[in-house]
């Protein structure tokens, strides 16, 4: 599969570029923000922590930029993302605590939006001019409103006014009747679910429109193909004809995943800030406020790698679904 090898090469390159960018961003910033942070941290951190950070960035030692860079790459590759200056714990520990929340909420909501949107798009395209199809332009509203503005609106309506759902946080720490213990127990799980409804709906509502419109348009384009007409002429059952069209229409949609996944993910991460929902989005927001560069870098790296991984999955799915792509290039 030469195509996949090519793509794999691209992903390695992209990952490397992200890694390098991550190294240079703090260094490019005016007044060497990193030095400034180190200076301000000096009073508060223990000498060991400071030494650890210095080792991570190679700042205190008189290393050249290149040497600093190699130290950084070596550390990152060995899984050492440095030490969070604001939390006083290794960055990997912070990520370990926050990633499950983000993956649970943003990840699943994005996947649900993609699947549901694609399905609705298939129906809208097939029943062109039908009820669902006429509703499609309305979805432009959700499509164009920034995620966090939509989140705010939902929060106001269903959280503040109607009191249907909690207005923030990932779970209740305590209430009058129950003390929540984190883990697989019903009170905790139900609290988590309750808190996730609004942020998850925000992500689904905001991102689903794009998938619906994209899939609908591809479906309509595909239905004009002769092989769909042939399937119909052969007398194949209606669902088979729709399936043949959908099977072909989904290919460009999958390759569009690579276009929009980073938009969807970054937009969704902001939703965490609106709902004060635990996760890497809220964490990077806090980290920016407290200029915690190691944590910022760690999160940027992880999010970028996650987006690249999603792209890789989309590529594999495309190759699996389109026999033509396996031969080309």
């Amino acid at each position, binding site marked *: 599969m030469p195509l996949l090898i090519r793509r794999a090469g691209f992903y390695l390159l992209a990952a490397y570029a992200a890694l390098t960018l991550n190294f240079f961003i703090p260094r490019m910033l005016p007044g060497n923000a990193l030095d400034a942070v180190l200076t301000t941290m000096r009073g508060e951190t223990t000498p060991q922590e400071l030494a650890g950070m210095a080792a991570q960035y190679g700042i205190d030692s008189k290393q050249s930029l290149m040497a600093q860079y190699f130290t950084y790459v070596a550390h990152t590759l060995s899984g050492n993302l440095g030490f969070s200056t604001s939390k006083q714990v290794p960055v990997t520990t912070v990520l370990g605590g926050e990633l499950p929340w983000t993956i649970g909420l943003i990840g699943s909501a994005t996947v649900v939006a993609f699947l549901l949107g694609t399905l609705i798009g298939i129906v809208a395209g097939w029943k062109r001019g039908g009820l669902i199809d006429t509703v499609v332009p309305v979805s432009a509203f959700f499509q164009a409103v920034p995620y966090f503005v939509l989140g705010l609106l939902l929060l106001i309506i269903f959280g503040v006014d109607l009191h249907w759902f909690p207005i923030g946080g990932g779970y209740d720490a305590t209430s009058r009747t129950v003390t929540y213990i984190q883990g697989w127990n019903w009170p905790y799980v139900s609290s988590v679910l309750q808190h996730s409804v609004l942020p998850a709906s925000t992500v689904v509502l905001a991102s689903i429109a794009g998938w619906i419109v994209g899939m609908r348009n591809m479906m309509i384009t595909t239905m004009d193909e002769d092989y769909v007409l*042939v399937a119909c002429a052969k007398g194949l059952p209606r669902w088979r004809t729709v399936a043949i069209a959908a099977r*072909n229409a989904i290919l460009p949609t999958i390759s569009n995943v690579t276009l929009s996944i980073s938009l969807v993910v970054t937009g969704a991460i902001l939703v965490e800030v609106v709902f004060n929902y635990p996760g890497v989005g809220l964490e990077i927001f806090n980290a920016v406020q407290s200029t915690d560069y190691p944590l910022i870098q760690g999160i940027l790296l992880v999010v970028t790698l996650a987006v690249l991984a999603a792209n890789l999955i989309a590529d594999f799915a495309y190759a699996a679904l389109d*026999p033509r792509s396996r*031969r080309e290039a």
Partner: protein
Amino acid sequence: MSTATAIDADAAPWSPAQPVLEVRGLNVDYGAGRDAVRAVNEVTFTLRRGEVLGLAGESGSGKSTLAYAITRLLRAPGVITGGEVVFHQPSASGGPARTVDLLAADARELAGIRWVDLSMVFQSAMHALNPVARIEGQLTDVLKRHRPDMAPAERRARAIELLGMVGITPDRLSSYPHELSGGMRQRVMIAMALALEPSLVIMDEPTTALDVVTQREILDELMRLRERLGFAVIFITHDLSLLLELADTIAIMYAGQLVESAAAADLLAAPRHPYSLGLLNSFPALHGERVKMTGIPGSPPSLRAMPTGCKFHPRCPHAFERCSAEQPALLTPAGSRGKRTVACWLQTGDRVPPEPLGRPEGDRSQDLAVGGH
């Protein structure tokens, strides 16, 4: 003329064979209401068992629209606005044929006729084959649908047999369309069209996208298969020279109307409509004397701005006053031997047609060596 009761197997004037398809006064519009334009206008013809009808005309003459409308496969915004299409479906037990008005049929009835007895070969096999499905699946799905009692192994055997009929080896069953050459793809489409042994196959420019050598091979194969299986064919093309070899009857379309139809040899030897003559003059004859290739000046009219009277009169070198005022009907021309019809004011007997349009039909000296039947 638009009721189903008008259907009857009228006494065939020139052939004892039973009709398989009768089209009467068919009108097809694109769009509806005020925006509608007429693409096929009052087309009438009868096709008999095993007959090969060639339908020729320039691009945009409505020949493909006609073919798709007959099968009710015409896409939006195509609308059938009048006429009738009667299909005589042979019964499986060998009894008398069942007549079905395709324009009155619902989706279920059509599913029982299309591909079973009336199948179609599309212009571009590249587009007519599902690019993401293997050949085997595309050949067997139709068997699975219409021959539910066939076992998977039988279906596969039939698929192999079908490929063999068009000269493709069984190892191609597991290929995807993009792995086949253009000629092979079209052969697969032909095999697919013949899967259920239909009595009529409509072919919409099936060889236009192929090179001349492949085209030739496929046409030869097609004719062999037709001889063997005895299906009737409507062969649509803009290339009149192809029809002279394979068609029994040729119908010429212009601007959505039939302007002339005749036995293939008669049409070649003695065209009666100036447009037929123009088409004949736009390709070189392989045999016979050198003729100056003149073609037809001008271009076909837009559907939105049809000329009055005879639709061809603005391009016709022989047009006179009446041509722009009145539309000629499709009639047997004066002095013809009956099988031919033409819609031209030159041929009504009131006038003496100019020389090339008045050749005697008996004169078959020109190209008979290649004439099909």
